[in-house]
């Protein structure tokens, strides 16, 4: 009997299906039988090298993230082994101090930026659309772009090491040291991280929109898996945490290269401004790393305890609470800089508060295990060991809230032990759990579980042997970031143990790699659902077909594969065009809260434009790095061209469902709103920096003399841009009603007003010169920096307006509600709002 013989009114027996399709979930087999072939043809990507560079498929991109992040982990790990070798005996000379300083700086930077978050993103990319029951991410081309930028920025950062120019200021790069360090190391650092931030921001935006708008019908927020929640929260955190870091890196680059004075104490700048901006990013960052890892544990534990996760609402609450509170504790990294006692107490309290949500999650997992039946797979062993390591790291973290104790052990090996327990224990162990858990789904093959468990033992023992002794050497007075130490300090024995442990840990990773490679060399094919899991990604082939699901199911619960209703819906809907979408690359757009179907949206096919854009941006960064500014400008212009080509080819098709006009907020609307949010956070951080420097300045403000800036031209300019909100609003209204000519005209009027604003602002710059310059003092740096950043954003807005005017006139853009004009109108309102804020900050406030 073949699947062709299946008739909808006579469902086959399980045995029939099993015979016909070994390893396939019966419901999927039925669905594939009806629509699989057509979909395969439709979604197939180009083969070979062309396909490799032009793919926009989230699974291929996700796999690349995992492999590339794994590669950077390997490089950073080797750096760690060299450092441990150097510290293995006192007064050692394996490496020079200069080399050691580059090693520890790059090790930290690489692990945090180029391994941990990208690896989380790899799982996010691969798993989230599958867990949500959709066909790809919201913005597949943007997804490809974020990968290519990640790859190029990582290669650029690591290229610095063989050139002898690796960053050597530590991973948190405190000024004034980093302002003064000669060579290009810190330029690699600032520009490399700024470059990476484009990838991280765009990736976060993509994940948020996917999670909010592309869930399968019926997957309300209360039925969204914990892993997806953790990715959603992490992505929101990235959008708000990256701005202060980007600002700090830009300021440091400008201070070093163009002599601005943001951090120059004698010129109105402030050393501590760097620390505030950095840790405003840095503390949320550790939760950005840890939350998805906790999400992986919440995915693994239910499957290997054969029951749903306990206290789901509280785990979700804990995840969201952690995300929010993490923005309020950053000063606990600065307890030794001489802050007030009030500040110390406040931040101690906040730090303790953030430990509570973690406790909720720990006990939820413990409760799940005690009420379930435990299956000790390799993934589960890693999940269990994570709980042990994380509680050790967590309790030492709580100790840091006792401020005088913090002041004893901060900047010592005790804190190195703490953060390796929470970062290795709290992120690497869950990532390994994720690798072993999702391996069959990602590769289609199974792992030798016995070998996997032995690799776990070596890794876990090696990890503890490496990092536990560091608690003791820290308490014995060993500071961080020292390339050697004396024999009489008493630190030798602990260092020897750590070094031995690190070699064992390295061996553990070699064994792990061996286990994974062995799996790839064998033909132990995995069925759809080898573990008997509960979430939707397991209702696909292993590895999934390009289109993921032949039929978009209706989700009935938090555990779709266990509820007996979601899977059958896949077979039930196999003749429903809305769920199969056989004519184009399409998927469903659903509502944010309840996942009711709103529209059918077109997905782009493979294109190499993201690669070219990333390559041009890389050239631009290299130009800036090397001081070849002409190259930088030309390459950046090429980026703009690539962006135009990209947008011109947009698949701007939104189909209504049931012949009614599309409802709800579009993916484009969300993208613009989130973009405005992150850029808004950047301006907010910059304005806050202005007032921080203003109020910590000891002399007059502006420092070059009590001369407030001129006000006439800025007043006119601000009025112009605020008034130009009217034509752009009208353009949006007219476009929504299909009045193309009027909409085009209004866009051009707005563009002219915007251009006038730019001209007026530039005129003001010349008027301020030379009383205020970029490099004279911090005030000048702030004036030109703030208004310069704004002008750059306005120019981008002018580009958008020009593009929209042309595409409206040539009928390329849709003249409909929610179309591109209304999105650009949002951006324009944002530009006007920032103009007013800067007017008040830069031009009015010095007069108060």
């Amino acid at each position: 009997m073949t699947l062709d013989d299946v008739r909808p009114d006579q469902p086959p027996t399980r045995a029939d299906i099993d015979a016909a399709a070994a390893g396939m979930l019966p419901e999927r087999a039925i669905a594939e039988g009806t629509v699989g072939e057509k979909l395969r043809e439709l979604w197939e990507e180009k083969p070979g090298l062309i396909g490799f560079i032009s793919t926009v498929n989230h699974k291929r991109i996700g796999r690349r993230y995992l492999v590339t992040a794994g590669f950077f982990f390997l490089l950073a790990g080797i750096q760690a082994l060299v450092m441990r070798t150097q510290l293995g005996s006192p007064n050692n000379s394996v490496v020079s101090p200069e080399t050691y300083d580059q090693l520890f700086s790059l090790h930290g930077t690489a692990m945090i930026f180029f391994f941990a978050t990208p690896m989380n993103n790899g799982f996010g990319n691969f798993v989230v659309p599958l867990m949500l029951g959709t066909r790809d991410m919201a913005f597949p081309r943007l997804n490809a772009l974020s990968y290519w930028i990640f790859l190029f920025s990582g290669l650029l950062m690591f290229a610095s090491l063989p050139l002898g120019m690796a960053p050597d200021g530590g991973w948190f790069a405190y000024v004034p040291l980093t302002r003064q360090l000669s060579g290009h190391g810190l330029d690699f650092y600032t520009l490399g991280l700024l470059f990476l931030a484009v990838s991280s921001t765009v990736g976060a935006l993509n994940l948020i929109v996917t999670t909010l708008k592309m869930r399968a019908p019926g997957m309300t927020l209360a039925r969204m898996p914990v892993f997806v929640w953790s990715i959603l929260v992490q992505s929101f955190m990235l959008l708000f945490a990256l701005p202060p870091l980007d600002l700090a890196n830009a300021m440091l680059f400008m201070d070093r290269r163009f002599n601005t004075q943001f951090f120059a104490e004698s010129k109105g700048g402030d050393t501590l401004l760097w620390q505030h901006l950095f840790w405003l990013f840095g503390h949320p960052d550790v939760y950005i790393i840890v939350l998805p890892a906790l999400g992986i544990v919440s995915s693994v534990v239910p499957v290997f305890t054969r029951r749903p996760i306990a206290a789901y609402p509280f785990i979700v609450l804990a995840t969201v609470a952690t995300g929010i509170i993490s923005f309020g504790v950053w000063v606990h990294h600065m307890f030794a800089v001489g802050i007030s006692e009030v500040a110390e107490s406040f931040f101690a309290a906040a730090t303790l508060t953030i430990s509570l949500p973690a406790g909720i999650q720990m006990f939820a997992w413990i409760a799940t295990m005690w009420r379930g039946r435990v299956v000790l797979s390799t993934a589960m062993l890693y999940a269990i060991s994570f709980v042990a390591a994380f509680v050790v790291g967590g309790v030492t973290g709580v100790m840091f809230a006792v401020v005088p104790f913090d002041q004893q052990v901060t900047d010592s090996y005790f804190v190195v032990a703490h953060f390796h327990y929470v970062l290795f224990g709290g992120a690497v162990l869950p990532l390994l759990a994720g690798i072993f858990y999702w391996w069959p789904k990602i590769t289609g093959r199974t792992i030798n579980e016995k070998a996997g468990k032995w690799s776990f033992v070596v890794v876990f023992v090696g990890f503890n042997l490496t990092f536990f002794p560091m608690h003791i050497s820290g308490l014995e007075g060993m500071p961080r970031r020292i390339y050697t130490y004396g024999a009489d300090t008493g630190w030798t024995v602990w260092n020897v143990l750590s070094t031995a442990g690190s070699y064992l840990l390295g061996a553990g990773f070699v064994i792990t790699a061996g286990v994974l490679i062995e799996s790839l060399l064998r033909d132990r094919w995995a069925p759809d659902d080898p573990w008997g899991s509960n979430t939707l990604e397991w209702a696909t082939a292993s590895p999934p077909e390009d289109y993921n699901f032949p039929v978009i199911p209706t989700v009935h619960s938090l555990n779709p594969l266990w509820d007996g209703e979601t899977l059958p819906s896949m077979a039930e809907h196999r003749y429903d065009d809305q769920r199969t979408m056989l004519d184009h690359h399409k998927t469903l757009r659903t509502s944010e809260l309840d996942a009711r179907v709103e529209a059918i949206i077109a997905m782009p096919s493979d294109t190499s434009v993201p690669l070219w854009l990333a390559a041009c941006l890389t050239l631009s960064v290299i130009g800036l790095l090397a001081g070849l500014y002409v190259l930088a400008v030309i390459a950046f212009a090429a980026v703009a061209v690539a962006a135009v080509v990209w947008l011109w080819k947009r698949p701007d098709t939104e189909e209504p469902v049931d012949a009614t006009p599309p409802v709800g907020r579009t993916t484009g609307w969300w993208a613009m709103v989130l973009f405005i949010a992150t850029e808004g956070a950047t301006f907010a951080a910059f304005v806050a920096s202005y007032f921080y420097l203003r109020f910590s300045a000891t002399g007059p403000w502006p420092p070059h003399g009590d001369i407030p800036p001129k006000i006439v031209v800025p007043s006119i300019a601000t009025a112009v841009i605020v008034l130009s909100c009217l034509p752009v609003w009208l353009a949006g209204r007219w476009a929504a009603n299909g009045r193309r000519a009027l909409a085009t005209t209004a866009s051009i009027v707005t563009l002219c007003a915007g251009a006038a604003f730019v001209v007026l602002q530039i005129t003001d710059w010349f008027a301020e010169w030379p009383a205020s310059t970029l490099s004279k003092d911090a005030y000048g740096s702030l004036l030109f920096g703030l208004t310069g950043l704004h002008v750059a954003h306005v120019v981008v807005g002018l580009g958008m307006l020009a593009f929209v005017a042309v595409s409206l006139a040539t009928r390329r853009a849709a003249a409909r509600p929610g179309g591109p004009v209304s999105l650009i109108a949002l951006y324009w309102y944002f530009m006007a709002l920032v103009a007013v804020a800067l007017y008040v900050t830069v031009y009015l406030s010095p007069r108060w």
Partner: protein
Amino acid sequence: MVLVSAAGHSTFSPVGPKADFTTFAWWLLFGVAAFVCVVVISLVVGAAVVRRKARRVSDSPATGFVLTFGVVVPALVFAATFALSVVGIAKQAHPQNRADMTIDVVGHQWWWEVRYPGGAVTANEIHVPVGAAVDLRLTSADVIHSFWVPEVMPKMDLIPGHTNDTWMQVDHAGTYRGQCAEYCGVQHAHMGFEVVAQSPADFQRWLQGQSADAATPTTAEVKRGYDVFTGGTCATCHTVRGTSADGHVGPDLTHVASRSTLAALTVPNNRGNLAGWIANSQQLKPGNKMPPQPLSPADLNAVVAYLETLR
């Protein structure tokens, strides 16, 4: 190079009120932490063992258990921890007895400038009277450093452009080792210092000695060394009070022979090391800011002889 000090360096052997508190806090926190770890690890490993052969799987959300042990119990523990933190912050703010001396410490790459009231200036050694509270004013001449002498007190940063006010009290006589604890460049690893607590009488004697001008040369070789020192490059960077040498780049050398180490605890202070340091300090502390000094062997010996008289 070698890192030397006869002193200990561990938070486990506190000798002053500030370190006493942090060590006490450590043991208290350690006790609670160890208990929590044992409980949690037993629970999770226990479940892995006990629930492997479980036959009955319950789907219950276990909200009560999670909230009690995940929120209520930790909240109580955290409240107590916060109380400990606040008490500690308050205690560390001011000494019990008023401080009657202020010492200024200025961080440099990679040495410590120590200035006493009355004009005494030294480097890499801080002497204090036993049992007395001393105010410290900390700042930096270049990048951020951190003042950490674990047996005596928690660390405090030295930040250029800012002055951090704190205090120190050592209750037991002895020598205690400190080290810079904020990465400050290539020789951060070799920026140590010593805190020497002496009886009040011994301290007064030491301070008087340090406040005095340099000893005048007596022998011919020492006089030659004096001439080379004050007439050559030495004087452009170093100060010897009572002579024309008035440089402010490197440490004050007025009483250099009284110190136990050279180069911030990098090498013991003896004739050989002194000569080696002057001739080519880059061999002992590569990257440090003192360039090699091309002196003839006779001149070098003379300078060393002169410096050895600066007790």
